[in-house]
């Protein structure tokens, strides 16, 4: 276990929303009294480290943020509820093997029938588990008439409204299902999504996908706060994995939040994913002083303006009126918080000589209506940082509760 890191609640409150957490909402970092048992080793350097798949909640949410991401949204093409169940059962079986660092299918990569294609594609064979987590959720579109799920759609699984300055590409937004694969080796994460895609053939197809690197948040208070592509620390105040109370209040859906056929979502969470293109070239031509005014924190230490240390207590109202950290701070948003697991991305160029780069924003929360939507509404209207940002993809999913031993992903929704 890593050393216990303690910070006072007030100090954490003062540390403010987001370092430089683009759109990111603030999170109250309460006392960090230790690390969650599901967390891997700090830094994730040990390739053989395994994050348990089974549990009360899905792994990959409060799990220490791994170094790499492959995220994919799927359109379900299955035509019956039974087929959808079989897909999620097969995904569960594969996910159990993948997250344990094992090959999938009979014979695996090399031990099967010589004249048949191998069950496992093989590119992760000597890479071990690398703390791979697979986290699966259901989008609003899954709750249409196709699978008899209309009545089970949680009230909190709302369609996101259009925000000012959105430039969303529908072809790479939304999706019936999403899978977040995080690992400390990019090839392990890509192998996992590829494998699930292959298993899904005929029942679901990838709608869109995103690779990410360089985690832009952490839930490990003992780890240094990572930086985003604007060069600012991002995720200073993410709730620690050890802070069960804050996670229950802000991240995990609680029993009673939803009733009737939608009660299945208790123990799950809601994920908002946004592909945020960052105009880094114009940002890079902005003076240091202005950059810090836009963010509301210093670039070197990540300290709130007017303070010295990253985790110094501060009053958000003392920061520049249009600064990102002020607008996203919980105290400006009725206490709303999210657990962020964003990743940087760089997808070649835009054809105009600029990097197509940015932040793939992933945030988990107990209720989208109380967290992401009001915070993003405020940011889109007033945030000085918006000048440098463009939201190009978006989706919201109800993330399934954890899978008990012998169960399958989504069983709480589909098992009845």
């Amino acid at each position: 276990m890593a050393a216990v890191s303690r910070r006072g609640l007030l100090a954490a409150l003062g540390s403010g929303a987001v370092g430089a957490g683009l759109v990111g909402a603030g999170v109250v970092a309460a006392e960090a009294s230790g690390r969650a048992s599901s967390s891997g080793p700090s830094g994730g350097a040990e390739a053989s480290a395994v994050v348990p798949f089974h549990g009360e909640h899905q792994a990959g949410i409060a799990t220490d943020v791994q170094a790499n991401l492959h995220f994919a949204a799927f359109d379900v093409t299955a035509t019956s509820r039974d087929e959808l169940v079989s897909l999620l059962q097969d995904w569960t079986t594969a996910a159990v093997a993948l997250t344990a660092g094992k090959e999938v299918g009979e014979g695996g990569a090399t031990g099967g029938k010589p004249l048949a294609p191998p069950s496992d594609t093989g590119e992760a064979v000597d890479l071990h588990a690398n703390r791979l987590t697979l986290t699966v959720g259901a989008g609003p579109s899954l709750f249409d008439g196709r699978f008899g799920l209309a009545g089970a759609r949680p009230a909190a699984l709302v369609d996101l409204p259009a925000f000012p300055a959105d430039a969303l590409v529908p072809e790479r937004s939304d999706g019936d299902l999403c899978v977040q694969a995080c690992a400390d080796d990019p090839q392990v994460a890509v192998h996992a999504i590829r494998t699930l895609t292959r298993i899904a053939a005929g029942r679901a197809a990838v709608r869109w996908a995103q690779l990410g690197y360089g985690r832009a948040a952490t839930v490990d208070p003992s780890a240094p706060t990572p930086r985003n592509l604007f060069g600012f620390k991002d995720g200073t105040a993410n709730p620690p994995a050890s802070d069960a109370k804050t996670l229950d209040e802000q991240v995990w859906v609680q029993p009673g939040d939803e009733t009737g056929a939608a009660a299945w979502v208790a123990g799950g969470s809601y994920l908002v994913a946004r592909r945020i293109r960052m105009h880094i070239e114009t940002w890079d031509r902005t003076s240091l002083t202005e950059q810090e005014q836009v963010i509301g924190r210093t670039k070197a230490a990540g300290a709130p303006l007017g303070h010295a240390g990253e985790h110094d207590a501060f009053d958000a109202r003392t920061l520049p009126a249009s600064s990102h950290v002020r607008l996203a701070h919980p105290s400006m948003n009725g206490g709303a918080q999210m657990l962020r697991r964003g990743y940087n991305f760089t997808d070649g160029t835009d054809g105009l000589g600029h990097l197509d780069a940015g932040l793939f924003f992933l945030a988990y929360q107990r209720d989208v209506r109380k967290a992401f939507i009001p915070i993003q509404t405020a940011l889109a209207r007033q945030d000085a940082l918006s000048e440098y940002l463009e939201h190009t993809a978006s989706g919201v999913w109800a993330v399934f509760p954890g899978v008990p031993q012998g169960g399958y992903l989504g069983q709480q929704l589909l098992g009845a």
Partner: protein
Amino acid sequence: MPSRARALVVLPLASLAALSLSSCGALVDAPSSSSSAAASAGASDAAAASVAINASDSACQVAKTDLPGGVTTFSITNTGSQVTEVYVYDGDRIVTEKENIGPGTSYDLTVDLTEGKYQVACKPGMVGDGIRQAIAVTGGTSQLTAAEQTAVDAYRSYVQQQADATVPLVQQLRDAIASGDRAKAQSLYAPSRVGWESVEPVAESFGDLDPRMDVREADLEAGQQFTGWHRLEKALWTGEDLATVVPVADQLLADVKELSQRVPNAAITPTSIGNGAKELLDEVATGKITGEEEAFSHTDLVDFKGNVDGAQKAFEVLTPVVQANDPKLVTELTTQFAAVQAALAPYADAEVPGGYVSYDTVTADQRRELARVVDALSEPLSQLGAAAAGQA
């Protein structure tokens, strides 16, 4: 359960026999080194027929030149200084091949061989006819069961029929080009390819015909001649003077006639029929869905239909064989073939030569939908070759 570290060890093929496959179908039991000689399981046939090939700059040493029929795995090691490739020929037909084997590297090439005489060719530098070694295959599991023989006979007859039907269509195409009738030649172009597209893997096994008849301009190597259907396609749709491609049309006609004459000697096995079906769908996925195959004429859907029909025919002749080994696969493929045919049906247009709408009218969303059904079919179809060989 072992971790991936176990599988990193390059196992000699013999120890594959010790694989104990878990019945739950999800996880892999790799053998521990101490128990690898103890048990025996499904892969023992392959293990028994592992044959080493030492491919050097000046030699092609095959460890065993008299082989039993059935599944053989050639364990190739390139001990030379140049990149090499290894072919197995049956006369002028390529049975199987592996290109780009780097110096000091090894590769396992698995093939199902029936009784007969073959040549193994190593090609250091990847050029020329290579250094050849004759091998003979006798008896063994190459003896086809009655059901397998029925399947092979039915498929050969189908291939012959398609090849024969292509000859008069190419004749008409050639005549229209020779008479300078561009509109008529354009209308004859796509229909003249349907037979070829239906049996392409068999045609491709005659290694010399395919590059002459069906190469695309983008795939040409420096110095290679652009001939065949796509050369004619380019001339027909770019307004080029047709007189310049009359010799190309003549050659294509000669080639389709030759193809038709060679079919009786094509080596066809249940496995090659099954793998051929998979290759036809690969053609759809990489060439037709993308619209790359028919870049000028946009008649990709005609080829698409030919590929799917050819694959479906292969599946149909194999069904009685596979039904015994893997009934679930038969059910799955029956469903998925129907889904692909249903997805293709809305694009049928009897008014258009070839019977399908121009591919440039098919939207990106529609192409994505076609890709989905093709992927859904291709994944189980990739199991057909092994199932036909009894490796279910």
